[in-house]
């Protein structure tokens, strides 16, 4: 039993790393603009299909596709921003409808271009088993888990140390005060969409490297990312990581100790429990009244 539980925790952590990478982009945009980008999952999916296209066209590892995915997804993310930016009234609410629509369009574009077949990498190297003591995983899972930790570290550093990162935090905290300090909120918002695009590109290539992709997947990714963002507490990078890892581990332990049919219910149960006990999420700050 110990062996089972240890493997479940390990698998859950790896899965959580993948969730974190997907959720971070959503969290960054939500933190800056209070816009829930419901097309974020589709951007991740787009990156995954770019990886597929590059791999099948040039017979190279999907990792080689990262620069192409970065370019395609960042441009797409900026286009999403320009559409969201055109909303004059009730941006928080109307952007939900707009980004949902963009998500549907992206899904159908993927369907038209790449058809409905399931896709996954053919690289045997990425799928080879890595065994560390009692822990088993695919090489791609472990590699991208490490990469997601590095990316999160870089993001945390960028947000806390760089000028643009601090500008993003300032806009997220108080848009008008940030303006008075000479920060252009529009540029900052574009930057946050680009950062979300970068994270989505890595997440998509990772997803293609160890998972199976198909056009309807994007919506499910957005939902998962949204759950983690709320679970974490809005605007918290360590919170996203902790929330994602916790979700991954709870899901894996549910499969091991209870039933695999209950995995998704367990995730939602955790989400509701955390919101019930800590309405601001695991790492969220209590909103100031008055």
């Amino acid at each position, binding site marked *: 039993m110990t062996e089972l539980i240890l493997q479940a925790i390990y698998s859950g952590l790896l899965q959580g790393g993948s969730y974190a990478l997907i959720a971070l982009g959503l969290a960054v945009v939500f933190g800056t603009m209070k816009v829930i980008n419901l097309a974020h999952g589709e951007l991740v999916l787009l990156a995954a299909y770019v990886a597929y296209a590059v791999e099948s066209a040039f017979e190279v590892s999907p990792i080689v596709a990262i620069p192409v995915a970065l370019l395609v997804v960042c441009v797409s993310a900026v286009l999403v921003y320009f559409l969201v930016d055109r909303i004059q009234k009730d941006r928080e609410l109307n952007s939900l409808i707009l980004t949902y629509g963009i998500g549907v369009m992206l899904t159908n574009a993927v369907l038209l271009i790449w058809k409905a077949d*399931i896709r996954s990498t053919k690289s045997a190297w990425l799928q080879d088993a890595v065994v560390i003591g009692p822990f088993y995983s695919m090489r791609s899972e472990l590699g991208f888990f490490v990469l997601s930790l590095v990316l999160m570290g870089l993001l945390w550093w960028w947000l806390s140390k760089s000028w643009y990162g601090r500008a993003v935090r300032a806009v997220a905290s108080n848009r008008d005060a940030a303006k008075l300090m000479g920060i252009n909120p529009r540029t900052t918002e574009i930057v946050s969409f680009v950062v979300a695009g970068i994270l989505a590109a890595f997440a998509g290539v990772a997803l293609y490297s160890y998972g*199976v992709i198909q056009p*309807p997947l994007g919506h499910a990714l957005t939902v998962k990312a949204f759950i983690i963002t709320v679970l974490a507490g809005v605007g918290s990078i360590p919170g996203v990581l902790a929330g994602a890892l916790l979700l991954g581990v709870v899901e894996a332990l549910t499969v091991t100790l209870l039933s695999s049919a209950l995995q998704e219910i367990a995730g939602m149960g955790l989400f509701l429990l955390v919101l019930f006990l800590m309405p601001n999420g695991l790492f969220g700050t209590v909103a100031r009244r008055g």
Partner: protein
Amino acid sequence: MKNIRNHLAAIIVAGTAFGVVPAHAEEFLVGSEVPLTGTLARVGTGMKEGIEVAADVFNRRNGKHKVKIVTVDDESSPAKAVAAVEKLASQGVVALTGGYGSNNIGPASDAANKANLVYMTSGGVDENLSQRGYKTFFRINNTAGYSTAMVGLLADMGAKSVSIVTSTKEAPADLAKDVEKILKAKGIKVVVHSFDPAITDFKPIINKVKLQDKSEIIAMVGYENDYVGIIRAAKVLKPEVKAMVGVWSLATAKMASDFPDLMPNVYGTALLPYPAEFKTAEGKEFAETYKKLFNKEPDYLGQFGYVQSMLLFEAIARAADAGTLKTGGLPAELRKSDKETLIGRVKFDDKGDNPFFSHRMGQHQSGKVAVVWPKDSATGKMNFPAVPW
């Protein structure tokens, strides 16, 4: 000249009165409600291709009547499936062919029944679909055909213990329940692991099979993405099993070409070997037309779509000839069908089910698929024990 015209008119009037003159050649609109987007887009598209091939072959072969397919995408959603059927009914279709997923087929065939339209499918194997007593519902395949094939193969392997890893979706869950029941009745130890369709990491399940169940066989009941996830997890954890056995969408040309490293020695239901060998004239015509229209090898989805549609078109033609098509005679005409088709014998019972449906099992061998069960249809010898790793 006038006399000749009068004679001709008299012959036609008399012939019509006594019913000896065939009905006019007509073009019939046939509705096709299939998922072309959403989660079932892949299988829906496959079925649609088969329907189009059937229409092409029928229109060429039947010199008198023609069919025209009107397709509406049900977006893999039950509500949209109902709307699609209602839309097609309002466009004047004489019958419907298509439907994928029991949860979509159920309400869609309800709507078809209300509109008194025949609903012909091969996309849902839920037992309840044929238990509703609809005289307009017809299906060429069913759960029993799949479970017979899977259990038959497992029996030939001499399996003593089986771990069934099954999706909680309706059709796989029903099939897994059937297989479990039959295997247990045979005294075989069975452990069932149901999984949510949203699951992507199967390692915790396969680890339970490896460390707790210690079964000889892993039986997978799900869909393509599930199989890939399960086999990948098994390749990483390497449980000591003797075979990986699945059902639909697994022993196919597509899986062989898309996942060459995962498929070796994996079993799944297969009507035909790959590369496909069509021995009958109809099979050859189907394959040629399929390649002509879609520039690829036919697959099992196309085959099912073709068979269901061809049976429907032929019954429509017969009913039109008998003059009963517009008076609700199509269901009765379909029940008269008894034909050897590309999927075997098809004859509908009073519930619209095909009790003669029985599948075959294939195994991926060196990039090809060999039919290995039943023995009288086998095109290759079973590699056993053998796993993909």
